[in-house]
Each structure stands twice: as structure tokens, then as C-alpha cells.
């Protein structure tokens, strides 16, 4: 009966490949340009890219200053 299982699996694979073969694809030039554009649009609001001002950094330890 494993032959039947193999055939069932092979049928499923063909079905799946048919679905994937049928999709619309856009050109890589357009895809890459859109990704670049997204990065550029959001760059100035990306804290890890532009840095976080100390006064607004929630993770920075607030140590008291000691005047010696």
C-alpha cells in the first residue's frame, strides 16, 4: 500500500507545483526598486540606523551623577 501513498504524494506535489507555476511575477528591477524606496522612506525613523538620543533611550541606565 506504500505504492498508493507514493502516488498520492506525487499527485499532491504536481498539484502544488501547478499552483506555484501559475502565479504572476513582477520584474526584479521593479521589486528591488520598491524595496530600496521603502528603506529610503523609513530610514530617518529607524532608531537602530540613525541612533537614539540619550534623553529618549528607554534602555539606558539612569545613573545618578556624583560630584567629586
Amino acid at each position: 500500500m506504500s505504492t498508493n501513498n507514493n502516488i498520492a504524494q506525487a499527485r499532491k506535489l504536481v498539484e502544488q507545483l501547478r499552483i506555484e507555476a501559475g502565479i504572476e511575477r513582477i520584474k526584479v528591477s521593479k521589486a528591488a526598486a520598491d524595496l530600496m524606496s521603502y528603506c529610503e522612506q523609513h530610514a530617518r525613523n529607524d532608531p537602530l540606523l540613525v541612533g537614539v538620543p540619550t534623553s529618549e533611550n528607554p534602555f539606558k541606565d539612569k545613573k545618578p551623577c556624583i560630584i567629586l
Partner: protein
Amino acid sequence: MGEMDTLKKEADGLKTQIETARKAVNDTTMAAVASGVAAAPRIQLKNRKTLKGHLAKIYGLHWSADNRHMVSASQDGKLLIWDTYTGNKVYAVPLKSSWVMSCSMAPSGNLVASGGLDNMCTIVNIKAASPKTIRELDAHEGYLSHSRFLNDSEILTASGDTTCCLWDLETGKQKVVYKSHVGDCMCLAMSPDQNTFISGACDSSAKLWDIRDGGCKQTFIGHTSDINAIAFFPSGTAIITGSDDCTLKMYDLRADQEVNGYQDAALNAGVTSVSLSSSGRLVFAGYDNFNCNIWDSLKAEKVGVLSGHDNRVSCIGVPDDGLGICTGSWDSFLKIWN
């Protein structure tokens, strides 16, 4: 010709058709397109906090949607929920099974999930008087490698049994089973619009799924070993995968193919984890070699490194507000950087 032979011939024909269609739209490279953009600055992040409390290897972490709390899982048998602003532990959830491989927090902050070699996904309400297990999701036939809540009543899981699953938390039953991978599913990530999700598996492929109808829409190949980590680019139109083959790849969903690769001849450690900065420009990748490399997603150049762990970086995450990045390690510590 027997039916198996016919089917094999048809499958091979379709694979060739797909490759041809991909080549037909492959009119340039990301490197060429990105040559016009300024290089990302050298990124030097400081370790702002080290969260100490786990007693064994950390296997997973997940930021709360409130950008302040975080859940981490360790094979010391505990989930810890942290207030990352103070570094304090807010809740400790003891686990029935210490062989945990992943954890996640619901967007509401009310629930956390964990699972691993027990093949189960255990859901705990941390807002109850004391943390209370409300569900044990028990139908996977292999280890639980990853989970993500859609909301307080639905969760996605990925399993070593090669399937992913959407569960109804009211009933504790499987709603949708996603079957197509032929190797252990190691990771998953939800699209920003929550209509689709992506999975990475030990069959070296990543797959895009329709959450509601269970159908696999696209399959991305090219890696030569297990895909351990996967993330969406913030626009939702591309994905990044990290693999035991020591590389990361960016696949564009609309071009249906690999558009960028992140590798270094000197790097011979597998990628364990991946997370992106809020603009998508920076890719943070944790490796088996104790480091986390920072890549320029467009130019595919290394722009920084986070070093400080004494063992493998097993998990990484950037909170929704993008204000920092957390790394979790087998050295039992979590570190927050910005």
C-alpha cells in the same frame, strides 16, 4: 509508462517551467539597483542592559507589542517575563517540560506560549492571580520549534513533524494544518497584514502560506541546508531567511525569487536567528559562532557586529517601535543593544 513515471515527468516539467518564468523576470540584480543608494553607516550599538536570571541555555525570546516587556525561554525549565526598561523580572512561569525550544507572547500581553520536545504548545495566562496554564495544544507529532499568536484566540505553530498549524484557543483544537514541507519546520513569521505567513524548514525551502485557507502559495529554494530563521521585510513584500549553510537570503515575494544573499567566505557558522530594523535596511543575524552580524539589506555588506555573548546567539528580536535589539544566548543571558 506507470502513473509514478507520468507524475514525475509532470513534476519535473513544472519545476522547469517555474525556473524559466523566474529567469524571464530576472532583468537585473539588487546589487546593481542598490549601487545608486548611499552606503549604510557603520553600525556600533552599545550593550545597554544584560538580563540575568536564567540558569541554562536560552532558546527563545519574543518582545511584547508594548515594546517594553519580553518573554524568554530557557532549558532551565522557565519562561521569564521581563520589564526591559528596568531589567527586572516581572513573572516567572515554571514549565512542565524543560526541553523548551520556543516562546511567544500574545499582542494583548495576556498570554504566553511555549513548547519544545514535548511536542506540545502550552498556553499560559500571565495576568491571572498567578500564572495559569489555560491550554495544552497537543496534536503535533514532532517537536514544537516555533509559535506566534495572531490574537488571544488563535496561535500558529511550526513543528518537527513537517507541518505548521493554526489553533483555536477556545477549543484547543487545530483549525488549519499547513502541509507541504518535507523536512522539520524550524521557524515561522507572520506577514504585517496577518493574511499570510512564511515558514522555513530542514528541507532547505521557505514557503508562503494563506493563513485562512491553508494553501501554500509559493516555495523559495536556494539554501543548501536547514532554514533556522525567517522574517518578513517590513513592507511585507520580501522575506529574509537564515540557514545552517551559513548564509542569509532575501527572496522577493512578487518576483518569486532570491534577490540578495548575505555571506562571507570567512563565515563558517550557521545562522540561528534573524531580525530586521524598522526600515528594513539593517538585518541582524545571530550565528553559532557567538556573534551577531549586522548586514545592509540592500548592498549585502556587513556593517557591524554585536559581540559580547560567550556562547551561541540562539534568538534575536527587535520590538515593534524599533528602539533596540535583544539577543539571547546559550550563555544564559539576554542583552539589549542600541
